[in-house]
């Protein structure tokens, strides 16, 4: 009897343990990405890989909803003074950081001050900011020197955005990059295995915002216990890894493979962020400093012959706007000069401009296949217009270095990542590569940033037209990133930037 009791007790215990194990089984989501990020310090870089990982760990005061309108995240509310010079933010109370500290105004002030100093977008806003102060335990006041209409937009951005870190983490980093990856996000940083993976875990004490999930904003739930970003450089292996269920998702997949997934219920293919390809003339020195020659290049470009390098027609679109269709800032001002596809006219313009056959250096990166292919087609189109083009192909590090030198190149292909507001475009600044110095642009931008929202769109149209008139940037077209997920992955949002909160994985 005793033995039977023991045996049944043992069985009951084992069953309970088994059930507990089944119920509490660890869930894990594995994301294959092309390369490891250079850092996880969100303030200092606008690199995609950084944001794709670290946006799960850190949050900002605001985030964009699915319509790209700013929505509160760590901010509870905000008020703008009547003169438009003072923004008062109430910070949510009781929000824990991953290190156990509770978020307060000092953390926000330290983070914003660092961001204003270190981030490219922060530096843009900093021209208008006189101070950021904590006026209460959960109150922060941002003081401007003149009204600016893009403050909340700038505070909502993900790219080199104003993510909030604990004040002591900021202090410990000093003038260097942050190496303690502590935030308030739904996942906390666990470890970075150099060259292998970054591992995040569900943050049990996460304080979700009380609003339905909407785009990057609203309620965030970590439905998996562990989120692993695995670095897989080989494209075909990332793809096969999802097909074999070794990975749950893979980022940056070739567009051509989407055809085979249309009829495959085990792999979901999704369009990622819309991007934009442009031809950047060097306006500071060399032949392209001449407006006449820039106009020649503008007239020679024929985008329908270029864009198929991005795959089938689902993955690219002909569009003259320098701001995306998905935003409220789409514009066709100046579009008559887009996609002229007129080699003969361009040739006549080159002759009229007295072009003497000086070679035009088209700088390309060998590591980016699509940019390289765009460059090859462009070379032919420009040569049909009578320009002598020399392709200069370098690896990414040398190419980027070249772009920072004012006399080392004449034309370059640029692929711009998605932004929701014109102010987030780096090419709007004269300090960006290509160095577009234009007094009219400066005056219009100043007016644009300080005007009322209703009037801002009209000013943006005038700036947009100026881009075309000055051939400051020659727009090629838009194209889309391609990501895939396993059929068992549920809740993956169709937002431009990939994220994995509110995502479940069926066992």
């Amino acid at each position, binding site marked *: 009897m005793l033995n039977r009791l023991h045996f049944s007790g043992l069985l009951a215990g084992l069953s309970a343990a088994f059930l507990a194990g089944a119920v509490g089984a660890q869930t894990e989501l594995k994301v294959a990405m092309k*390369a490891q990020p250079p850092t996880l310090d969100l303030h200092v*870089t606008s690199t995609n890989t950084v944001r794709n990982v670290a946006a799960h760990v850190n949050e900002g005061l605001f985030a964009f909803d699915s319509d790209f309108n700013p929505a509160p995240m760590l901010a509870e509310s905000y008020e703008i003074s009547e003169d438009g010079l003072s923004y008062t933010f109430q910070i949510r109370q009781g929000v824990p950081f991953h290190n156990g500290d509770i978020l307060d105004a000092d953390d926000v002030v330290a983070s914003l001050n660092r961001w204003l100093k270190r981030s490219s977008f922060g530096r843009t806003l900093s021209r208008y900011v006189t101070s950021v102060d904590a006026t209460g335990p959960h109150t922060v006041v941002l003081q401007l020197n003149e009204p600016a209409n893009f403050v909340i937009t700038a505070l909502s951005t993900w790219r080199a955005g104003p993510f909030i870190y604990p004040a002591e983490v900021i202090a410990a980093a000093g003038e260097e990059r942050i190496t303690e990856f502590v935030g308030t996000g739904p996942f906390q940083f666990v470890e970075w*295995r150099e*060259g292998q993976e970054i591992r995040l875990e569900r943050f049990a004490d996460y304080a979700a915002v009380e609003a339905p999930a909407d785009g990057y904003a609203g309620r965030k739930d970590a439905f998996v216990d562990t989120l692993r970003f695995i670095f897989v450089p080989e494209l075909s292996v990332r793809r096969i890894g999802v097909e*074999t269920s070794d990975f749950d998702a893979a980022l940056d997949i070739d567009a051509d493979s989407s055809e085979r997934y249309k009829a495959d219920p085990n792999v979901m293919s999704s369009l990622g962020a819309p991007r934009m390809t442009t031809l950047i003339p060097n306006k500071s020195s060399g032949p392209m400093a001449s407006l006449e020659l820039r106009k020649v290049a503008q007239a020679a470009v024929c985008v329908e012959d270029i864009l198929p390098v991005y795959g089938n027609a689902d993955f690219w679109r002909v569009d003259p706007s320098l701001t995306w269709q998905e935003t409220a800032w789409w514009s066709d001002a100046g579009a008559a000069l887009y996609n002229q596809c007129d080699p003969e006219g361009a040739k006549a313009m080159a002759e009229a401009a007295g072009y003497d056959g000086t070679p035009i250096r088209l700088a390309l990166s060998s590591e980016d296949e699509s940019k390289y292919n765009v460059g090859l087609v462009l070379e032919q189109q420009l040569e049909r217009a009578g320009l002598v083009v020399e392709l200069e192909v370098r690896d990414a590090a*040398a190419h980027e270095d070249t*772009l920072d030198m004012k006399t080392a190149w004449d034309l370059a292909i640029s692929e711009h990542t998605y932004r929701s507001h014109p102010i987030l475009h780096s090419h709007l600044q004269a300090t960006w590569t290509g160095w577009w110095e234009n007094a009219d642009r400066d005056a219009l931008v100043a007016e644009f940033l300080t005007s009322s929202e209703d009037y801002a769109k009209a000013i943006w149209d005038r700036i947009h037209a100026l881009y075309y008139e000055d051939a400051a940037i020659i727009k090629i077209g838009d194209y889309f990133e391609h990501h895939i997920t396993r059929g068992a992955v549920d809740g993956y949002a169709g937002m431009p930037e990939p994220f994995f909160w509110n995502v479940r994985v069926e066992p």
Partner: protein
Amino acid sequence: MRAYLFRRLFGTLLTLFIVVTLVFVITNVIPGSPAALILGEDRTLEQVRDLDRELGLDRPLPLRFAVWLAGVLTGDLGTSYFSGAKVSEVILQRLEPTLILTATSAILAVGLGVSLGVLAALFRGGAFDIGARITALTAAAMPNFWLGLLLILLLSLYWRLLPAAGYVSFFENPGDAWRYIILPSITLGASHAGIVSRVARANLLEEFGADYLRTARAKGLSPWSVVTRHALRNSLVSTLGVVGVTLALLIGGSVVTETVFAVPGIGRLLVESVLRRDFPMIQGTILVIALLVALVNFLVDGAYALIDPRIRYD
């Protein structure tokens, strides 16, 4: 022997110094900006200058070299420009996958290569010999990345036997780790197995014609004994030279295999570091690879003496 060891040590140190000096000069002279890559597409020249200052890249090259060399002599290889992690710690982390991959590939290359070569020599001219030679030639000629992708297609995608990519440490989960190392090991080891097999076969055949073997047979030794105790042992001296080179090539040549299978080894670390101009990481990795190759050569020289008593280093 002591004099030999001293000479060898001095030669190794001199080689290492030349290697690291050359690498330092070349990596710092070729164009490329780590700051531009860290800051991303929206950077401004002002940001690049600030970051160059933070990384110490605004200092003159000789000063940077002196600082780095002083660090190396005190055991400090510097910190990564990108992650900020200590170079020595990163290399240590990424040495394990490479050493495991190299060791398993070497076992495969040497074990399979020598066995195949010896058997082919024993059955010279027969069907086995022809088959072994074709196999060895195919394995030696097949590009690494192509074989790797072929294996992934067959064994991962179609038959679902092994994972397509990734790495699990043997020290953390030995039960799972072996599944991740099989395909990379075959990929990396196959071409070397082919080369070793061809060399082993040729060396053994050369020994078969030697006078001392005829004497051995005349003494009445069994064919098995003639082959294993005399011919094989002597042929291994020449084969060992190839094995030494193979090991050195495996250490330095694992880059492609590590990239295809996402193995976080030192070869991939070197390529990634070169591509992003992470100078301290490049210099540290080259130093360690050079040290490993020197160590392998040293051990192979020692093994010569063990196999062939006529070889002395006095």
